[in-house]
């Protein structure tokens, strides 16, 4: 996962030669420095790398780079539908619900003299993820792993305790299935951060200036695929608008845009560039804390559900670029609901409030993350709720405060949290969406304090159900439970706008996340 935190963390940094700057030189003419040769790909990442260890990676900026410098068992296919292909493995096969056989390609060499990739390394790498000593944040990706059986130098069998549905969707094709040699990890002291002890992917790190630029270069020992670009320059730019301007200024070959810029770029892509709109897996919702005294009465929560004009909220926040959602699970994934249970109905909202004895309205707060889109969304919610007599006070927070609002560990703000607009991103398996709303997650990530045992049980069952149809029904039911609780107003999945130079052909997952090592020249 994937809740997007802003960038943090920095490490070593080259000491800059003290260039004497006496005045301002009015050098003339633009200088298109590196891209001219066409063998350098310049891309934007929303933050700098923080941790490249598969067991401790922090977010997409790490993942983008790890995809390039390591080899995982499988990878996602680029395209518009979710599927995967073997990568370090020549073949992967499900023998029965709890056994998966794999055979590695021979001749994948690690850097720094760590030799060839073997099935022993796979055993070490996967079992390391679940080893309590590793303390991996990603232990759930391998939740049902029992052990890995090594057959011979290149082949082995992954043995599960019980069937595990997300394995194929969000474990094997991700960074959780990266294979690294035991010797290297041990030499690094059991874990590493931004300086991998060795690499094994299509690219390797050439240089890194924290917060400024990361340069990847082609790995000469990599034989499985032939990457097109000699170098990939990854620039951490947090602000989407700045990235858009950087692209238009000719300094990037690829970036994704802010959601609200999508209509403008669709209508009018910059010269020499192409623009595509991709559906996103993320989900945005407004939550209602059901334990807050004002909201203990379900009728009050339902009144809010009916009072919010979700269409208007999404339209205003994203300038028409995104559509309203029906739940947590985006179209294209099993468990997506075609329709929600509640639609905008002011009269009904007023009636519910009257029944609850609150026809004269009340005042409450709405917490948001301090971003233009959320600010716009919150102000429409504010106007909607004013129509039924509820006065909303908007409370924008910086990310440090926002992400600890509902956590019982971080203070007492979870008690006074009332309404909140929140966004989680996810991997392409529905269990990633429901994991955060179970009863065990109350006060951890379940900030609405939604408490449904039935939901929790269904989530556990969903993890081991391998029949896609049965599984889909479960997740539909779970989203119904959420909506019926009165705690949730599902807003949107947003969308991803991708802007790229017409000199390149990007390789993108269906949700628009880049697979950098497979980008091609046009």
């Amino acid at each position, binding site marked *: 996962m994937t809740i997007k935190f802003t960038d943090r963390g920095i490490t070593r940094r080259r000491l800059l030669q003290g260039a004497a700057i006496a005045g301002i030189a009015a050098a003339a003419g633009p200088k298109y420095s590196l891209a001219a040769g066409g063998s350098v790909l310049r891309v934007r990442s929303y933050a700098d790398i923080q941790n490249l260890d598969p067991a401790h990676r922090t977010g997409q900026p790490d993942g983008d780079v790890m995809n390039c410098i390591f080899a995982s068992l499988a990878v996602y296919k680029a395209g518009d539908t979710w599927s995967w292909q073997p990568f370090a493995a020549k073949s992967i096969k499900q023998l029965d619900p709890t056994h998966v056989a794999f055979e590695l390609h021979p001749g994948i060499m690690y850097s720094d003299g760590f030799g060839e990739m073997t099935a022993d390394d796979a055993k070490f790498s996967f079992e390391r993820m679940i080893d309590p000593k590793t303390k991996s944040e990603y232990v759930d990706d391998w939740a049902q792993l029992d052990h890995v059986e090594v057959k011979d130098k290149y082949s082995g069998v992954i043995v599960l305790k019980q069937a595990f549905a997300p394995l194929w969707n969000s474990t094997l094709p991700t960074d959780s299935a990266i294979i690294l040699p035991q010797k290297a990890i041990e030499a690094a002291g059991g874990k590493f951060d931004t300086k991998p002890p060795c690499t094994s992917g299509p690219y390797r790190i050439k240089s890194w200036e924290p917060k400024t630029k990361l340069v990847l270069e082609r790995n000469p020992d990599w034989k499985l695929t032939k990457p097109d670009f000699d170098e990939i320059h990854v620039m951490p730019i947090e602000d989407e*608008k700045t990235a*858009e301007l950087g692209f238009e200024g000719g300094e990037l070959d690829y970036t994704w845009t802010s959601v*609200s*810029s999508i209509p*403008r770029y669709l209508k009018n892509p910059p010269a020499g560039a192409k623009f595509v709109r991709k559906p996103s897996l993320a989900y945005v919702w407004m939550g209602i804390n059901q334990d807050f005294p004002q909201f203990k009465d379900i009728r009050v929560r339902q009144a809010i559900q009916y009072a919010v004009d979700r269409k*208007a909220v999404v*339209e*205003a926040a994203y*300038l028409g670029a995104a559509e309203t959602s029906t739940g947590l699970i985006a179209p294209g994934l099993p468990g997506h609901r075609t329709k929600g249970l509640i639609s905008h109905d002011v009269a009904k909202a007023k009636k519910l409030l009257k029944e609850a004895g609150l026809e004269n309205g009340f005042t409450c707060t709405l917490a948001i993350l*301090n971003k*233009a889109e959320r*600010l*716009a969304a*919150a*102000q*429409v919610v*504010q*106007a909607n709720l004013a129509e039924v007599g509820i006065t909303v*006070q*908007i*409370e*924008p*927070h*910086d990310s*440090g*405060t926002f992400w600890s609002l509902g956590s019982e560990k971080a203070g007492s703000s979870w008690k006074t949290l009332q309404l909140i607009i929140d966004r989680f991103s996810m991997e392409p398996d529905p269990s990633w969406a429901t994991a955060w709303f179970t009863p065990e997650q109350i006060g951890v990530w379940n900030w609405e304090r939604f408490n449904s045992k039935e939901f929790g049980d269904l989530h556990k069952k969903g993890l081991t159900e391998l029949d896609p149809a049965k599984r889909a029904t479960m997740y539909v039911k779970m989203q119904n439970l959420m909506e019926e609780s009165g705690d949730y107003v599902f807003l949107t999945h947003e969308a991803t706008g991708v802007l790229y130079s017409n000199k390149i052909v990007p390789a993108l997952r269906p949700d628009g996340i880049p697979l950098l090592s497979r980008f091609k020249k046009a």
Partner: protein
Amino acid sequence: MSDTASSASGAAAYRPRGRGPLRRILGEPLGGLGAGLVALAVLGAIFAGVIAVHDPITIAPIDRFLAPSGDHPFGTDNLGRDLFARVLFGSRIALSVSLGATFLSLLLGVSAGLVAGYGPRWLDNGLLLVFDALKSFPTVMLALFLVTLTGPSLQAVVLVVIIANAPSYARMARTQTMSLRHAEFVLAEQSLGAGAVRIISTHILPNIIGPLLIVASMDIPVVVAIEAGMSFLGLGVRPPTPSWGSILNDGFSYIRESPWPVLAGGLPIIVTTLGFTFLGEALRDAFDPKRSGGEKR
């Protein structure tokens, strides 16, 4: 940018004597301009409710990013709100916050400065340390800290302004008090047994407050700029309150969609800054004995 009073019209030094201060202010073209612009801002704030046709916080997403027209003289913002109404109502916040924050910083700064300048040596050193520490604390960081603590609010803006400005006033007041504490009339009062409070309030304060007031008047627009900067970092007033800073910040977020919100938020800031600066300078030239050709009040 506040503690060094920038003097303007040295031209005043060559002016004929004997005209009243008011006429001198309005007679100087820039002084007249300043007074006019300040009047414009004040009238806009007072009569916002009468002048504005639209409500400043009613949203109409269909009408977003409209260009200026008869109905919307400054256009509309990303939620279709009338920018003209937002600017007018925003001037209430801008002026009240600016005046309030400046008054409070002056009050606190001057009191501390008087105490430091007149009090014992150890107290002076201690206060000097406090002034310098506050002054060297990065403003942006101060704002971030205060706002994470209190949430975005007018009070937070006011507090940031006070902490940023008061130390300068305190230092000025301290220096001038020190130069006066050994003056003959003060020594005379002391020998007659007058208490420190009496000496400070009746003899020192009236002598030092003039220049400080004028410097403070020129700092008033700085407050608006601080509010705008805080809004840009997401630390300004609470939405949907219309403030010039939040108009600018919203406009910045959507600058590729429409150039009007940034202009609508920026123009009044320029207008009030011009107004208060030129008015303040004209005031100083009119009242400063050194500059008004030796004329004494």
